[in-house]
């Protein structure tokens, strides 16, 4: 039975959207015949350290993260820097685990995450690791707002990807494409979104929270310069 170390790179830890998705991939992995994974949250200092130590001994490492300012969160980059000795080790002939990734973002389109995906694929090459693929998924922040039930299709796809990882050692291309959803807005999509963004209802998630926090009146605050007006 292959071993899996599942690393949650979200600074939000256990309750993150990344972890919600990783959990479904892990369930699929077990269904596909993989061993119960060791789950580590990089935001916890002791678990970060354990994740550095556990790396070389795993058959597969699945590292999930949210997109932060168009790249990996600083926390994940710190982890990757801690793996530098494994680059040397690989050159000296020591094997590194297969690497699989999950990148989720708040943007509806997958295109925002593709440059990070490219980086991660190159990272696997740098470590001499077989590259098992990257799950890219947009619209992540809405997971906080909508009921579990509404995500059934997404959970099923993530589970199927986990099964593929256990059975074939990599994610399947068709399932990766399906889970990514909208890659880019179509010309029609741009028109619709341009109109929708001007409607208060489209920003309901933010507006609701702003109001609840009593911050609605200050939502356009610009403490460090002159405010954008439009």
């Amino acid at each position: 039975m292959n071993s899996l170390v599942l690393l949650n790179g979200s600074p939000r830890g256990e309750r993150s959207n990344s972890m919600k998705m990783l959990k479904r991939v892990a369930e699929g992995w077990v269904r596909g015949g993989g061993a119960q994974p060791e789950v580590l949250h990089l935001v916890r200092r002791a678990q970060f350290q354990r994740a550095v130590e556990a790396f070389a001994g795993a058959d597969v490492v699945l590292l999930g993260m949210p997109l932060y300012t168009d790249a990996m969160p600083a926390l994940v980059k710190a982890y990757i820097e801690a793996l530098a000795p494994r680059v040397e080790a690989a050159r000296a002939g020591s094997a590194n685990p297969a690497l699989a990734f999950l990148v989720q973002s708040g943007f509806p389109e997958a295109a925002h995450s593709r440059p990070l995906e490219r980086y991660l694929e190159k990272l696997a090459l740098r470590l001499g690791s077989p590259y098992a693929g990257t799950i890219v998924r947009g619209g992540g922040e809405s997971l906080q707002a909508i009921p579990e039930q509404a995500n059934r299709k997404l959970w099923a796809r993530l589970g199927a990807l986990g099964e593929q990882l256990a059975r074939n050692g990599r994610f399947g291309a068709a399932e990766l494409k399906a889970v990514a959803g909208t890659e880019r807005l179509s010309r029609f999509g741009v028109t619709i979104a341009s109109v929708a963004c001007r409607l208060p209802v489209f920003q309901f998630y933010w507006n609701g929270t702003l109001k609840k926090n009593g911050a609605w009146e200050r939502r356009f605050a610009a403490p460090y310069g002159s405010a954008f007006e439009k």
Partner: protein
Amino acid sequence: MRITILNGEPDAASSFHAYLETLTHRLLASGHAVTKIDLAALDLKGCTGCFNCWVKTPGECAKRDDSATVCRAVLDADLLLLASPMSMGFTTALLKRGADQMIQLIHPYFVVEGGEIHHRARYAHYPVFALLLGADPDSDAEDVEITRTMWGRMARNMKSHLAWSAVTEGNAEEVADELARVA
């Protein structure tokens, strides 16, 4: 021209640090107002995705740390130079820690820009972005290109664009002169 440099090199004794010192002095000698921020010297707690800077204390990070210093210096500049050695094929975790907390400079609302969904501006002006990467024997041209692409997208989300980038291979003073011609 007002130039803010965010230095993401954690090691003050490194050759990259020395290179950046030379570059900074050259820019000052040419009459530019330069603010150089050594991120390693600041207390930056790092973004934890709490979104309080969007929904609770709009425009301000709720953590009590030095991210306000970074944000103010970024907005006060015409040109923002992100400076970092290449490490594991990208800029350092330290530079990223500084950048992650910059989401307080934009607004949560979505807008459509260039055919993509992006965040709305919070401020009337943002600096033009530039990127200085410390050469590293383990980084190749593809690593540099991937790094530039990611920071280029970050610049777009900061209502700006990446106007210039270089690797510390050339003479630091010549690189400084080239940079000064950008904005």
